[in-house]
């Protein structure tokens, strides 16, 4: 019957489409787990500023540009070892005074202003901290002195968007981002346009010790990033989107299989032994059907643990005594009465042998459609918990992205990609399993096949 089913599936286009999508998801999952191992994924998702500090905040996916007339900029980053950085000379001016000039150059061709410009500094010195002047040179030759600052820390950052003194010096109107005058053709006009061309940043360093050094890095934050964009913490969403696939698939598959198989075994045991065993199972089922599953899961999540494994176990435990036990029971009652079971009993087959080798195999075909149809509901259950803020504390999942997006007002601020990408991932998974499941239902349920 199972072998015949494979042949039959080919006659159902929706089943084929569903199956192909599921296989693609499975391939993506395998690729993800190999390419970004678990530890690496957790590091990329929970690591901290060091990992994602160079990414723009809330950047759209790069393919947004395909649909836009005014192209959004990509992030440009280079450190002082980059080939396009020109060393303008290192020289001793006095006994304890050295001057070292560097010039960064980058080409800017986008139609929109970048999100921000940042310079990261790192200095080594004994007593007296080095001093840096930052000069911005526009393609039209205009020079703007951005800031003079002494570099004391291991990781000191100069952010143009937060440069108060620059804002004051340029006499910008209230609320105008200082990034605009750096890049605009005429920032005083009503609708300033981006001046395209080669921009330069000159760093005029003054050192006060012979072996004092200074390292720097320039980041011009764009407005698009990767194929998935970034979130409010500058994290690359592609990590979470990719890792969402194996998590969702294995969660759905494990939960659905666990529930179906255990339900089947419990129903079979109840029917075979009958009497008080059967009665007890029936009563437990009735109690269980009154229990509200989601509230209990939420309580477990808040009061006990949010780990995905704990959630999985609780979900399975709450679902095995579900309504399907009654359906299975009805079928098993028929099977129990059939002659071949009688025959097995007469030659002395053990209880376990009859249950596992003679009764359960008969019912497997009817279980498969409901198993496949059950997978998306568990995938969405995980997402539901995540949307309530009860997602796994470590793993990146689709539901967690949706939750982050919702909490940070992604829709109100128009960051549609943040919501739509994980939604589509969830949606397509759900529909694929549903399409396959409905077709399997028709294949294995002869009464439906005629319709």
């Amino acid at each position, binding site marked *: 019957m199972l072998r015949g089913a494979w042949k039959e599936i080919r006659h159902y286009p929706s089943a084929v489409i569903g199956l192909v999508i599921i296989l693609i998801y499975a391939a993506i999952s395998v690729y993800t787990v190999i390419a970004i191992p678990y530890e690496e994924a957790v590091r990329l998702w929970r690591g901290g500023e060091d990992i994602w500090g160079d990414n723009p905040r809330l950047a759209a996916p790069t393919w947004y540009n395909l649909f836009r007339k005014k192209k959004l900029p990509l992030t440009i980053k280079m450190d002082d070892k980059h080939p396009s950085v020109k060393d303008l000379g290192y020289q001793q001016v006095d006994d304890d005074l050295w001057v070292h000039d560097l010039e960064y150059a980058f080409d800017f061709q986008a139609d929109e202003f970048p999100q921000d410009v940042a310079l990261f500094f790192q200095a080594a010195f004994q007593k007296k901290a080095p001093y840096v002047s930052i000069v911005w040179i526009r393609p039209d030759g205009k020079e703007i002195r951005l800031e003079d600052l002494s570099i004391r820390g291991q990781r000191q950052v100069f952010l143009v968007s937060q440069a108060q003194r620059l804002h004051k010096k340029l006499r910008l109107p209230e609320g105008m981002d200082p990034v605009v005058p750096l890049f605009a053709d005429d920032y005083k006009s009503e609708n300033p346009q981006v001046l395209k061309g080669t921009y330069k940043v000159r760093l005029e360093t003054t050192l006060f010790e012979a072996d004092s050094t200074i390292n720097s890095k320039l980041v011009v934050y764009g407005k698009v990033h990767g194929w998935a964009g970034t979130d409010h913490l500058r994290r690359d969403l592609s990590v979470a989107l990719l890792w969402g696939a194996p998590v969702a698939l294995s969660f759905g598959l494990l939960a659905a299989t666990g529930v179906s198989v255990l339900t089947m075994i419990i129903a079979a045991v109840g029917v075979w032994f009958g009497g008080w065993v059967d009665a007890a199972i029936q009563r437990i089922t009735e109690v269980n059907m009154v229990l509200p599953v989601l509230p209990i899961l939420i309580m477990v999540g808040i009061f006990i643990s949010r780990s995905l494994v704990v959630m999985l176990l609780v979900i399975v435990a709450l679902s095995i005594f579900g309504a399907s036990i009654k359906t299975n029971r009805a079928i098993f009652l028929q099977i129990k*009465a059939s002659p071949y079971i009688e025959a097995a009993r007469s030659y002395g087959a053990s209880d376990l042998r009859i249950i596992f080798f003679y009764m359960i195999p008969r019912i497997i075909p009817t279980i498969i459609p409901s198993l496949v149809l059950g997978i998306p509901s568990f995938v969405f259950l995980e997402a539901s918990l995540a949307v309530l803020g009860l997602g796994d504390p470590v793993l990146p999942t689709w539901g967690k992205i949706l939750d982050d997006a919702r909490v940070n007002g992604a829709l109100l601020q128009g960051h549609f990609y943040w919501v739509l990408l994980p939604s589509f991932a969830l949606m397509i998974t759900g529909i694929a399993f549903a399409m396959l499941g409905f077709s399997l239902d028709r294949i294995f349920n002869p009464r439906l096949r005629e319709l």
Partner: protein
Amino acid sequence: MTEQVMTVGSVEEPQKESQARGGTPTWIRVLRYTAVRIVMLFITVVIGVYLTILIANMGGHVDEIRRAQIREHVALMLQNDPTFRALPPEARQKRIEAEVRKAEKRLGLDKPFLVRSFIFLHQALTLDLGRAENMTSDSGSRQVRLIILERLPPTLVLFGTSSMLIFFTSLIISLALSRQYGSFWDRLFVSLSPLSAAPGWFYGIFLITIFAAWLKILPFGGMISTPPPETTWEYLLDLGKHLILPIAAQMLTSLFISVYSWRTFFLIYSSEDYVEVAKAKGLPPRMVERRYILRPTLPTIITSFALSLISVWLGQIIFETIFDWPGLGRTFYQAIQVFDTAVIVGITVLYAYLLAITVFLLDIIYAIVDPRVDVGGVQSTTA
């Protein structure tokens, strides 16, 4: 998620046992059956509520937290008391212990949790819902009863409207489709049924994205604009506007699957021999539909209707959270977040009672509308 109340194609249970009991008079069997059923349902409710109490108190852990809070509070209070500071250390310790014991006694924390859990159970089952620990109703009351009563109407408005709409629309559409099996509309509804794989809140996010964030023609969520409109007409209009997206989201997730399963169900019943006979006799199609298709499927329709009504009561936690709907589901979630055991247990016990009553009434209605149901027999476990 889906309304798969109907187990299409399932096999009927053998009815041998019920025939064996033919000896006892009917009314005794009915009475015995009713009594057993009530006892069983009550035990079910008790177990469900007790489990909720255990989980909501983290098996007694919440008591520990509360004790620690009391101790800290007492110590802080006494620190500010000059007569206390003048006491020697041992006397101070004694004083703290005495105050802590007084406070614990006042809150009933002096008894072990096991005893307390049964006190809670008794209070819950007698619907003595008590006072909330952290939450208040909008009118400022701490009575759990008032909090629930205040939150119930929004939930009933939203889920009542959407369940009714979905139930009757799907019934009407599916009857129409089963008449024209294989037509364009039939195939359209069948091929759209996988949409039910996603829950309502999920479509909610989509609809909010399109109609609130992008087109900006409908509100993001909530039930009434702030400030609320003055006249009744404007109020209703505003409410309607806020209802559109949630109801549409509910429709997307349940309508197609509902139509699909009803249609399949009707098709199976309309291929029965007696329907063919009725058609062959030349009865008008409407009559065939009413008498030979709808009549035997009535019990299933009623069950499904009752269960969809009962699901209205608890609302949907996530759905209300997404749409910022001030109903019971969201209140339940808020109560869990602030560890407000009294509110959690209060909502659960009401729900459990309602469900139990519905299941019981369904059993009786079944016996009335379906002559095949043999009361007291094997078939009776319809829950």
